[in-house]
């Protein structure tokens, strides 16, 4: 099986579907001739033409609106928003239109639009190239929200997303495009080729939406994470030598509540991790959900390890980014009790 980094895996997902279905096209800023600022659409312009790897003006709201209209007219657009930080100009179109089309028309209309967007920090991108806005989208009914943590999942989930007849917001943690990141920025990163999840089939396969993955089974505490934080959490668990069960959510909505409940009911403890700011982040929903489904099993307060409630900083990136240390502290706090 070929080794792919996450960029190549995403590219391959789009390529495979464009090959199979002329209704699939990719569109966004710099995605055509140039192949995307992160190169995720490289080669698609040459292979499928300017109208299927479609460069677009810098108007995220216009791009999403256009994709909605295309989706209504039988196409299956895959939109790239250059950075998740720039998804807000499209917010109204996503929330008021894309998400509600099917429902408000009594099922008459819908638009199978996938919105891909690189998110998250750890790349010295400052406050406008580092945000993690996923939580907000999980509050909008009618959207599915996905965030993969490795190339294999990225390709399989993106194929599922594009083929899904509902709109999907597909967040790509850019910090791990080229290789996993354990939170230690002093260490040289390893490419995905060195990891089993970097082995990605060339052809068509799916990873289903709505199913979490148990990355590491364990019995003492359940760790819920997604995207880059899966790797930071895994390293923290390793470093601290804790028998934690690490769950990679993969899809935030619909959430795999069964896998989560089963785990927490077993371990009785839970730590929730994300890069996004804390207050009203997706971690809040996870805590609420877990305490509802597992209250009688809980042996300690559920802990949240998150970004702080500040704009994403430039100079203090590593003080902001949830570190192994903060994760270990949180795990240990939950373990202290009995």
């Amino acid at each position, binding site marked *: 099986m070929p080794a792919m980094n996450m960029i190549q895996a995403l590219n391959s997902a789009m390529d495979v579907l464009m090959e199979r279905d002329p209704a699939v096209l990719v569109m966004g800023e710099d995605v055509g001739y140039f192949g995307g600022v992160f190169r995720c659409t490289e080669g698609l312009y040459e292979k499928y033409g300017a109208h299927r790897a479609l460069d677009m003006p810098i108007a995220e709201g216009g791009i999403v609106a256009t994709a909605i209209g295309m989706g209504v007219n039988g196409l299956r657009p895959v939109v790239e928003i250059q950075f998740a930080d720039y998804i807000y100009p499209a917010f109204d179109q996503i929330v008021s239109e894309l998400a509600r089309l*099917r429902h408000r028309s009594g099922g008459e209309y819908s638009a199978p639009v996938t919105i891909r967007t690189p998110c998250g920090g750890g790349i010295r991108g400052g406050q406008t190239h580092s945000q993690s806005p996923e939580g907000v989208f999980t509050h909008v009914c*009618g959207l599915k929200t996905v965030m993969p943590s490795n190339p294999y999942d990225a390709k399989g989930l993106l194929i599922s997303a594009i083929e899904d007849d509902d709109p999907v917001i597909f967040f790509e943690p850019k910090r791990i495009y080229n290789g996993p990141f354990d939170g230690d920025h002093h260490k040289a990163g390893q490419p995905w080729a060195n990891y089993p999840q970097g082995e990605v089939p060339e052809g068509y396969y799916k990873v289903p939406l709505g199913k979490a993955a148990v990355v590491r089974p364990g019995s003492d505490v359940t760790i819920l994470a997604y995207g880059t934080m899966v790797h930071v959490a895994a390293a923290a668990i390793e470093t601290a030598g804790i028998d934690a069960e690490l769950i990679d959510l993969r899809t935030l909505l619909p959430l795999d509540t069964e896998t989560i409940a089963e785990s927490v009911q077993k371990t009785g403890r839970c730590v929730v991790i994300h890069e996004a700011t804390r207050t009203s982040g997706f971690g809040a929903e996870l805590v609420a959900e877990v305490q509802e489904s597992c209250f009688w099993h809980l042996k300690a307060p559920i802990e949240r390890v998150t970004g702080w409630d500040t704009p994403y900083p430039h100079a203090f990136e590593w003080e902001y980014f949830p570190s192994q240390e903060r994760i270990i502290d949180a795990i240990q706090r939950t373990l202290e009790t009995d």
Partner: protein
Amino acid sequence: MTSPTHAGWQSKLYVPVASSRPDQPADFSKLDIPAAGACARPATDAAAEQTRDLAYGLVRVLDDNGQACGDWNPQLSPDQLRQGLKHMLAVRAYDERMFRMQRQGNLSFYMKCTGEEAVAVAQAMALESGDMLFPSYRQQGLLFVRGRPVLDMMCHCLSNSRDNIKGRQLPIMYSWKEGNFFTISGNLGTQISQSVGWAMASAYKGEDHVSAAWVGDGTMAAADVYHALHFASTYRAPALLNVVNNQWAISTPQSFACTGTTFAARAQGFSMPGIRVDGNDFLAVYAVTQWAAERARQGHGPTLIELYTYRVASHSTSDNPDAYRGKDEAAQWPLGDPLERLKAHLIAIGEWDDAQHAAVEAELKAEMTANWKEAIKYGSLEEGPHWPVSAMFEDVFKEMPGHLRKQRQDLGV
């Protein structure tokens, strides 16, 4: 709090005003109305620059004597003209009935298009059935032309058990896929840019269908309009972008949206023809729409059409315009009533008379009454029956995910 609290600022900020307000006489003196037939009709493949004058003129075909004049005369047959008149009369009869039903508490809300009937009716007639309509909430006429049963429209407005959109939206927020009529959004403007994407997909698939979208004068300020102009122009989308300038956006006069020129003038900045047309002139509206549709189908791209008209009724049943505009303004509107004008034309050419007119009106009135009586049998918002409550949880997604199934169970439905 650190603001300067000294007074003594002498504001120089310009704030637009209305041409009239309550207790002022209506003032349409600034409206420059060219004679019918005065505007030239360019070829449908004319370069945008060559159409510039049309953005500042006003395409008119029907003159004050009911005669059709000039290049823009679409040369419709008497049958077509009678059909148009009947559709407009039907729209008005429907509006009257529904407005009354709202006042009697049978509907939660209603919006009339009185005085603007020619816009939707003539435009729909000038388009083909495969063309896709992205209406705002004041183009009910489109549905009449496309042949939607009045009963279905009423059932929607009643949110009853036969509402095709399952009671999910306010009255008048129709959706009718069979008729290529898009689901209306309560959010202003959002659909005009979507219509451009639809048109681009039509071109992408090599098809000949065009899209048509409508926004009001007030909505011309919305970002989505700019996206529509921008993207339509960039990709030469086969799209008709229609601005229904009915002079008012609730209480706000068009001076707040029009920025001192015409709406049609905005098109030139995007290399796109912008055409201002007498929106109360059925023939002119038909002709301009036909021109733009032909142009789009030929691959010459989008057109912005400003339909110059007047909102005779209140904004909606929640609104009282007496609080913000002169009572006589509608009566003073110099472009007349679209129904009267088409009627006069048909009479002038010997194809219609008052008796026929009265008969159609009576027939339509009866039809609306009959439909209403039938519709209300299927229920109403306050009394039901509605769709089963469980329908609320459907169509959020194509297949209901676990958390919604659970919520539905929690509600016990």
